């Protein structure tokens, strides 16, 4: 298990016009765990501190707090490449060093046999371009090379920052399957992504942060359930239905010709309408998506917000 504890990182910038010296907290006392056997998604709006958190976990940035991998600091392992594989930036390679040589350099540093290089190139589908210079690779191909680098040492944990960026639909499906299988084999995967629909299919748990602070650390199911699933019901008499719902203590609001009831199951509403001798014309369970849950959770914690029509009118 990866345990990140009290991770903090501040940036100081000099601003002569304002208060001369301003301190910005990129990561603020963040603690969470990444379990083995599961894919843990890492979500947050732009500028929330996701990449900085990953860098802190790996000791690439100097900050406060510490991260342990199965109870030990990463640097205490003789060969860290067997513990954690990383993909922090797709284009992190020398543009004129061939894909194979790029991986060979990493293999040499990690004491990994060179035959593994060809294995991972085959696995990510880059065998045909193994001798090509990656400077001209597309973003998707670069991501695949990055994934190959991450899994080179067959590490117990993977820390991946936006690995699906630039991948085609086939590539995304492959990545999803690959990461799920990787986790199934008793390993841990910690992955950030902006593709929320993808994350909902891939991750078991999610860590959500905003402005460097922890907002949620839970399972995907609980996160979505907590985001207000509702039941839509349309009956022969809306007024009668409202009375019955009120009496039963359900919260609801008008939604077109029907009512949207929160915190209820379709069974409950169906039974309630039957008891009130109402004809049910429509009864649908509306499950919140991860996107809705995410937007609800991170409302107000976005670092950068686009202007909406509503905001402009104000």
């Amino acid at each position, binding site marked *: 298990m990866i345990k990140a504890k009290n991770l903090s990182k501040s940036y100081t910038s000099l601003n002569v016009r304002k208060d001369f010296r301003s301190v910005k907290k990129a990561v603020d006392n963040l603690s969470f765990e990444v379990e083995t056997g599961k894919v843990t998604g890492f979500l947050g709006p732009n500028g929330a501190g996701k990449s900085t958190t990953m*860098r802190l976990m*790996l*000791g*690439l*940035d*100097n900050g406060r707090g510490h991260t342990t991998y199965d109870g030990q600091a*990463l*640097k*205490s*392992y*003789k*060969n*860290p*490449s067997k513990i*954690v594989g*990383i993909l*922090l*930036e797709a*284009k*992190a*390679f*020398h*543009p*004129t*060093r*061939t894909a194979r*040589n*790029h991986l*060979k*350099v*990493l293999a*040499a*540093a*990690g*004491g990994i046999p060179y035959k593994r290089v060809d294995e991972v190139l085959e696995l990510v589908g880059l065998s045909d371009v193994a001798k090509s210079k990656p400077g001209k690779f597309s973003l998707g191909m670069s991501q695949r090379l990055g994934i190959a*680098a991450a899994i080179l*040492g067959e590490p117990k944990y993977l820390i991946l920052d936006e690995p699906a960026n630039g991948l085609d639909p086939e590539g995304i499906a492959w990545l999803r399957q690959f990461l799920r299988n990787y986790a199934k084999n008793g390993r841990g995967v910690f992955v950030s992504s902006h593709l929320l629909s993808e994350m909902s299919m891939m991750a078991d748990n999610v860590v959500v942060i905003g402005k460097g602070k922890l907002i949620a650390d839970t399972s995907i199911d609980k996160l979505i359930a907590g985001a207000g699933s509702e039941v839509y019901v349309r009956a022969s008499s809306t007024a009668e239905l409202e009375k019955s719902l009120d009496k039963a203590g359900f919260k609801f609001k008008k939604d077109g010709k029907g009512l949207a009831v929160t915190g209820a199951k379709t069974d409950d509403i169906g039974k309630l309408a039957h008891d009130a001798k109402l004809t049910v014309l429509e009864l649908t369970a509306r499950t919140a998506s991860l996107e809705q849950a995410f937007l609800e959770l991170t409302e107000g914690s976005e670092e950068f917000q686009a202007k909406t029509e509503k905001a402009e009118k104000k």
Partner: protein
Amino acid sequence: MMPTIKAEFKKIFTTRSTYLLILIALVIIGIFSVYGEGFKDSANLLNSSHNHPIKAQLPLFIAGTITQIATFVGIFGGIIALLLITHEYRYNTITYTLTISNSRTKVLFSKVAAVLGFVFVYSVVMTAIGVGLIYVGLALSHNVMPHQDINYLTYLAKSVFYAEGYALAALLLGVLIRNQVGAFAALFVIPGPVEGLLSLMLRADSVYLPFMALSQVVQAPIIMNGHPAHPNNDTGYLSAPKGALVFLVYLVVGWAVAWYLFLRRDATKIT
């Protein structure tokens, strides 16, 4: 530590720039040795009038040329060393380098070890080629030099020291500055304009400036009144060992600072 050193060697030998720089160095040394020295300068020396003081330098012709070759060898070795570290920050491969190893100190010392090893072989080979090409130039020009007063081993050692020193200084600038353009600018501005301007102030003491001290190691020998003599110019003079010592003091202090910063700084992409 061996896997890390091996990886650093692999980095040097798997980039196109290494081969390109070696090729450029070879071309420059080739032109300088065959045409500049072996063909043209040797003829000028041999054809000068018998009483001309320059004639006294004939026995030191090869020795003088080796010291000049050393400066070319040093510059290109320095650029290769500088690229070894600045490429890491430019292309963000530093994230892999520092995650794979369990110690930043190991990474830094592996880079130093790889640079020392590479530059040693490179400078020995290039100096040998340079000397060989002088004889090719002499043969082409049909000039015959008198017996040369030279201890090849001493001059080879001086050339290697100069190249290693220059490369370590370049690597140091790369570690300190991290930005490739900035490090390149420093590597060419400090030994040239900066030390040049400072020498206007320091005059004879300017030999205590880092790169001037290093250049004392490969100071071209001269003969005056039939005896080896020290060049007595405005920038002063240090013997080769003293020059080496002064330069090493700068290097040790510089590397102590670089080591501290390498451990403390965030490993971020620097473009």
